[in-house]
């Protein structure tokens, strides 16, 4: 089982991102479960959602406490919320920021992290393609590049299923751009 936790703020599409990711994995024949951390859906408030992917039926209903991957939609959360809680030492981290990972003040975390960390300017890519600062769909393109757990084409189809017409088109373009950025720049630990 591959478990993902998504951190962001209310209004950034944190719950929608988990849902789209689950739809993408489902389309590729996997079992997928997406659900929000309930009750905190206020604009701007820290919000968490979860997604599980597996090749067999997923029965558990507990929150994702030991994630294999963490997606951070809002970089201002990394020193406010324990976003790395329970993360596997060989897991994946994808942070929405235009700054290099070395500038994020994560030295303490990185000292014990042997996984793969990538940054991706998802908000900027969303502004460029959508005209709105909604980083969720773009980050899913980055997730596909970083982890290989789902294909970009499945993410693309799931985005278009969720957002019809031009909105789907533009979100999809942002996801493709983020995929390219992350694939080009994945740093297994910026030393």
């Amino acid at each position, binding site marked *: 089982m591959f478990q993902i936790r998504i951190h962001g703020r209310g209004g950034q599409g944190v719950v929608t991102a*988990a*849902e789209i990711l*689950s*739809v993408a994995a*489902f*389309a590729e024949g996997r*079992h*997928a*479960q*997406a*659900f*929000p951390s*309930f*009750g905190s859906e206020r604009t701007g408030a820290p919000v968490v959602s979860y997604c599980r992917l597996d090749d067999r039926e*997923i*029965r*558990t*209903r*507990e*929150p994702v*406490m030991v994630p294999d991957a963490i997606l951070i939609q809002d970089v201002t959360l990394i020193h406010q919320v324990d976003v790395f809680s329970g993360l596997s030492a060989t897991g994946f981290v994808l942070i929405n920021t235009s700054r290099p990972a070395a500038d994020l003040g994560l030295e303490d975390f990185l000292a014990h992290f042997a996984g793969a960390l990538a940054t991706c300017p998802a908000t900027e890519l969303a502004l460029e393609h959508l005209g709105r600062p909604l980083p969720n769909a773009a980050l899913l393109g980055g997730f596909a590049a970083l982890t290989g757990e789902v294909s970009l084409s499945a993410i693309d189809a799931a985005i278009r299923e969720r957002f019809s017409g031009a909105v789907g088109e533009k979100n999809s373009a942002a996801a493709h751009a983020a995929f390219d950025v992350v694939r080009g720049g994945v740093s297994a630990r910026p030393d």
Partner: protein
Amino acid sequence: MLAQIEGSKAIAEAVARCRPEVVCAYPISPQTHIIEAIGVKVKSGELAPCEFINVESEFAAMSVSIGASAAGARAYTATASQGLLFMLEAVYSAAGLGLPIVMTLANRAIGAPINIWNDHSDAMAARDTGWILLFAESNQDAVDLHVQAFKLAETLSVPVMVCMDGFILTHAVEGVDLPDQENVDAFLPPYVPRQVLDPDQPVSIGAMVGPEAFEEVKYLAHLRQLDALALIPRIATEFSESFNRDAGGLVRGYRMEDAETVVIAMGSVLGTLKDAIDLRREAREKIGALGITTFRPFPEAAVADALRSATRLVVLEKAVNPGGRGVLASDVALSVPRSPLSSVIAGLGGRPITRASLEAMLARAASGDLPAVTFLDLDEAAVAAERARLADVT
């Protein structure tokens, strides 16, 4: 058709395929996406000739459902938590009048203190209303139980409540095999009411009944619930033959073959529990689970039969009966009076029930170290501090 879909929307799809003729609901908190999705379908004409009636409260929602059902319509509504409590007087009436309304209860806690999250307290308030109460373990289960619920309700002229964990199931997006319209049509014939309010042939229903006959009326309702205990497994079998998957029934065992310790539970916690049981089984502990699908009428004989070889029982439930063991624990204890039983209260007000906590509970149970009543994952220090503070005051 297999779809990756939110639980609430899956229920809306299932209910739509059951062709309701009147859907009446109070469309604000506590409510789910179920009603929203059905409302969209009614407005688009997809459910024609279904009428969606918007009302000002849950009490009105159930009252309108009663009127619609009495007039011969297949009636559906949904609620949760305080919404159920607000309609409770009419909930009793629906059962007393023998009207086959189907209602989804997206289980949530009851205040005070204010809490919007999941537990089973709301369902416990409907325990003795005369409705049949079914509990879903997953969204697939919830979908399938709704299809069975209409058939059950209309065959017996008894209302049925399908309980599914609020948020944990209603807001979870997962794969669900949605039943095809033609299969549902073949399984669920059009509703033929036993009697109809008709201006051309006037009858009264729900008239006053005095002491000379009230007890007989209630006894007849009691017998109908016993009929339900026989009918529910038959409908589950028929469903399984029509849809090629199992759902419904009275109780469902998991790894019960040689189980010495059995955990009895209802709803979505059974999923996490099964994972925990698999792990303890790897450590060669003889542990199984018994899921209660039909909570009302309580299937005493089926529970007793399923638990006949168990030597230790743990009843895990998401509702509190202050000062006593849990409600489900009491029901199980009556079914198997000689078995040692621990009542574990867990997941109140949305507290996650983790596999780790369940494994710890199972370990304590296996070593005989589980008290008669336990609250899982209690913050003992916070409780002690509050008790000390109150002791100072008194």
